[in-house]
């Protein structure tokens, strides 16, 4: 059903300068019994202050490991020290010692995890878990830290925050726990916020609340957000830029408008086609990407998507495609995208 794409290249503009986060050629590999697993294999992207980048992909595409590598939260071993560069402002995060990164983590960069029940400590009250952040990073007194934590909980929409702060995580519902996680991540007003599937475990009406909350807080503090998700609908509504990942690499990136209006990579096009939509008349059957997501320990040669791709040629089976640029911001790694200069 897909045909070859032709794009006309625009003249490139000068590089962006006010990037708060710049990831260059990041590689995070894991040593396992079955050999080296290349979870993240040469990923590059950048995020400006106040902007949101969406990283889309299926499970095992390396989207979470990209964030965890930037936060230096990947367990080593089994992971090998990530290679490449992750610039946070002017500092290369990968060259920092554990102690130096600890100072940044939680204060200038923070992360929201998918499952708030397993990421909050069930033995400690919410108060204990929130005030710790301020006591460690800001040297706040316990009363000041408590006061600030209550304010933060109120800001993320937890009713009766002054009383609920002394409760334990199990006394909160899923949506409320996710709010606590967001409050914790935002306590020090981070410059970069990684949100790893922040709404996947939640119902749609609660998802809408949480996404709006992240957006409001982002506008208020000017945080750059990296939103990891598998839901293209969430990406369309909340991000400025999108990077689509497949088998540890970014296969397509661009502004959200560009990628949705003119998806170049067959994987992106397949994903968009295969989503049942509420806003278009129903079709008889959905387009389904054939085959299965790849096994990272045993990737096919050439483009890892070729066994599932309708357009695959001999070239795709031999070599990984170069990035083809459709505009200064929009590019895709596919042999079947042809750029007309």
């Amino acid at each position, binding site marked *: 059903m897909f045909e070859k794409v032709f794009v006309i290249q625009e003249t490139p503009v000068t590089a962006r300068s006010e990037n708060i986060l710049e990831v260059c050629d990041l590689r995070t590999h894991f040593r396992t019994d079955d050999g080296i697993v290349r979870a993240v294999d040469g990923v590059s992207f950048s995020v400006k202050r106040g902007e949101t980048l969406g990283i889309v992909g299926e499970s095992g595409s390396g989207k979470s490991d990209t964030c965890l590598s930037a936060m230096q939260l990947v367990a080593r071993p089994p992971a090998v020290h990530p290679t490449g560069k992750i610039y946070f402002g002017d500092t290369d995060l990968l060259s920092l010692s554990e102690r130096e990164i600890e100072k940044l983590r939680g204060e200038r960069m923070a992360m929201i995890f998918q499952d708030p029940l397993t990421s909050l400590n069930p033995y400690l009250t919410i108060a204990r878990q929130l005030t710790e952040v301020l006591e460690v990073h800001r040297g706040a007194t316990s009363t000041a830290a408590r006061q600030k934590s209550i304010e933060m909980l109120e800001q993320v929409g937890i009713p009766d925050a002054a009383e609920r702060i002394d409760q334990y995580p199990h006394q909160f519902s899923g949506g409320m726990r996710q709010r606590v996680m967001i409050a914790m991540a935002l306590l020090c007003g981070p410059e970069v916020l990684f949100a790893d599937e922040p709404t996947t475990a939640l119902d749609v*009406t609660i998802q*809408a609340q949480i996404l709006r909350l992240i957006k409001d807080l982002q506008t208020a503090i000017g945080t750059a957000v990296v939103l990891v998700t598998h839901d293209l609908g969430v990406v369309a509504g909340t991000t400025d830029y999108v990077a689509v990942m497949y088998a540890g690499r970014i296969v397509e990136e661009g502004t959200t*408008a560009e990628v*949705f209006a003119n998806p170049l990579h067959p994987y992106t096009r397949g994903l968009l086609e295969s989503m049942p939509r509420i806003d278009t008349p129903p079709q008889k059957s959905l387009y389904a990407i054939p085959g299965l997501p790849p096994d990272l320990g045993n990737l096919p040669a050439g483009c890892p998507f070729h066994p599932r791709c309708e357009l695959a040629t001999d070239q795709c089976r031999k070599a990984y495609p170069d990035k083809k640029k459709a505009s200064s911001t929009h590019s895709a790694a596919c042999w079947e995208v042809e750029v007309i200069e």
Partner: protein
Amino acid sequence: MKTTGKPDTPLLDVSDLTVQFRVPSRGSVLYRKRKDVIAVNGVSFSLTRGETLGLVGESGCGKSTTGRAILQLLRPAGGTVIFDGEPIHEFWQKKGQKWVWDKRLLDLRCRMQMIFQDPFASLNPRMTVESILSEPLRNFGVVQGAERREKIQDLLMTVGMDPRCLRRYPHEFSGGQRQRIGIARSLALGPDFIVADEPISALDVSIQAQIMNLLSELRENLGLTLLFIAHDLAAIRHVSDRIAVMYLGQIVELADAQTLVDRPQHPYTQALLSAVPTPDPTREQLRQRTVLSGELPSPINPPSGCPFHTRCPVREQRCQSEVPRMRTIEKGHQVACHLVE
């Protein structure tokens, strides 16, 4: 098909179905009282042969419990479930303290089956594909020996799997393939009616479309009647003829799938629809969202009057005291709301 009833009578008629659970209420161990939670409260609908009804709602609204009570996997506390003319809610007998199925229900089992949400938990890891699929055939003594193996290979082909994988174990398959095995198991006895409880929500995006297509295909080829339970409205709309929206144990709106999406009447349905993200950035930006405040109330302490009044954006005085009845507002479109004309 081995149906006995007339083709124009409904295959399944559920009327005023109620399910209660006993839970310990808070308090000291000695004075702890047991409390009844009404998980499903007066649910009524009917399904004609070959029809698919989608049951949608947020987690905890009682949609899975409804599915299980219809199949008599849970004993309903009240109401009737008529399957092909047989009052199956009566097919129970008391053995000591416990209620067990009687012979008549066991005989009907082969005509009603279930597909489960989690393909990792619903297949026994110690059984091969062959033993998983032969279990129902053995239990009902349908086919023997070599014929049985042939039947199993047929089943695997029906769900799009390689018939040579008989000796493999569930862990050797991906989530989508396991879900196919689960579907094959539910088809083994040639049922008329299947309850599919969130069959796609544990799967990757690119695999969800494959399974949805498989279900529509099977429905068409085998003339199945389906109760499709999910929280994803876009997916439900894609597979269902009619949709029932559930909130806190009650059906609040029931209509033809297209009507429900185009002209939702209940404020909860409207909010649910407006919270579904669509993969279209321009549309998402312009969209007016009704973001509901608050969360699903606990069914242990349900609100008085209309169950939705605590979160309803258009509530009135009477919503707090009067329970709205299900009313037919046009042919095939029922709503339980005081404010709908």
